[in-house]
């Protein structure tokens, strides 16, 4: 298995169908959109939270979003790598996502800045396995 595929397999353990890697290597979060009323939601749901329709489709998000708020977290249950940056990201499709921010000096973060989805190790489970999922990082200029 390639590193990328292995990485994604691990991420799926925590995030399931809520994340996927595109052919160009970029990471996309995936929500759902209701085919009847158009309501959008993240994480994916089998039923529409507006009209209760079960006629819903996968909706790829972003990949870029904006940073609504964040905090450097020093206290969390055992297993999470501390400190970590917790954040709410607003995706252009109109949904808000909770995620960790990685690959960034917290002092360099600013409200409403552009961030992009990635996959990162967030902690370690009780059996010593790496816990990985989607995360966000500042959009790197010139990096496609």
């Amino acid at each position, binding site marked *: 298995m390639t590193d990328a595929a292995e990485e994604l397999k691990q991420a799926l353990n925590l995030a399931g169908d809520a994340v996927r890697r595109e052919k160009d290597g970029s990471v996309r979060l995936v929500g759902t959109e209701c085919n009847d009323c158009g309501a959008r939601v993240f994480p994916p749901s089998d039923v529409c939270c507006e009209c209760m329709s079960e006629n819903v489709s996968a909706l790829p998000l972003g990949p870029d979003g904006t940073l609504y708020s964040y905090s450097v977290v020093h*206290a969390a249950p055992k297993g999470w790598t501390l400190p970590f940056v917790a954040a709410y990201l607003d995706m252009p499709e109109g949904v808000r996502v909770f995620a960790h921010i990685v690959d960034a000096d917290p002092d360099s973060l600013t409200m409403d800045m552009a961030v992009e989805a990635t996959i990162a190790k967030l902690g370690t489970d009780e059996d010593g396995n790496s816990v990985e999922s989607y995360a966000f990082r500042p959009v790197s200029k010139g990096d496609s």
Partner: protein
Amino acid sequence: MREVSVIGAGMAPYGKYPEKTLADIAWPAVKQAIEDSGLEKKDIEAAYCGTALGGMMAGQRILKKLGITGLPIVNIENACSSSSTAFREAYIAVGAGVYDAVLVIGVEKLTKFGGGTLPLEKEDWEVSHGLVMPALYAMRAKRYMHEYGLTEDQLAMVSVKARKHGALNPDAQFRKETTVEEVKNSRPVADPLHLFHCCPSGDGAAAVVICSAEKARQAGADAIRVAGSEINSGKYMTGYRDMTTPEITLRGAKQLYEESGIGPEDVDLAEVHDAFAIAELLYYEALGFCARGEAAKLLEEGETSIGGKIPVNPSGGLLSKGHPIGSTGVGQIVEVVRQLRGQCGDRQVEGAKVGLTHCTGGGVSGFDHGVCSIHLFAR
């Protein structure tokens, strides 16, 4: 709905009692409430017990200690609003004429978890990705600071005020005053929140007896009327939410003020859900004690301290009195009842006639809070 009053109030001081059972923490509060009511235990027709993490049949475990059994006992979980929800349900039952006299208990023993952040439901999506309550409030704080220019010193002043009040309350977990510098230099938890910006983990219980007007007269009690009662769940929102506006509190307060005919200007004191320092400031605005963006000014001018225009959390609040979560709702009601009766000694809000309690419960993705219950009391 017929008139309903609180006629008895009891508290077990908040603190850390790892060696005691939940029942042993709670029964003194229940006994105190019944003795205070002037009723006998045989007059109690039903009991409602709120606890979030106390386990099955908490009410039965507590009440068997006092031989109050064989009556309907209902146990209620609604996160940090468990016992304010229990109070609301009891209020409806007495108001509807189902019962004349009912006991309401709030209880929690958090020391059984050994400290740390409050254990949340792991099936929740954001919790499964590492969300903890301090981080949620920290992000509210960060955004509020960004939008309204709240300073770190002002945020710390919330805790300083809470501790100043708590120092006067024998039932409070923290009875030592603090300073802005000490708050800012305490251990970082989730920036901008430090340890002293966060309510402590702990144990405790509170109880009240409520009854009909006729029963109150029979008991010869110093009755405090329930002047308004509301509960709401949060609105699930998948989109962009303004985290500086606690929508559920705003909506609930509006509804309660309209229904009761009592406005924020009529409220003499309030016990609000200051689980973290930022929360108290957001609630000044949501409850209508000041305009948007003016919370820090209201605090700095001393208006929310004892002696000010609208003292908030004269008990010390969750930050200083403590937050054994299932106990908090009834604990707030006990404080307001004692304030309206003039029983609060050094922390007495002089001439208080109307008091408000406000209790939320959170920790579920997509909600401002999962639940919020607000009550008004008058004498």
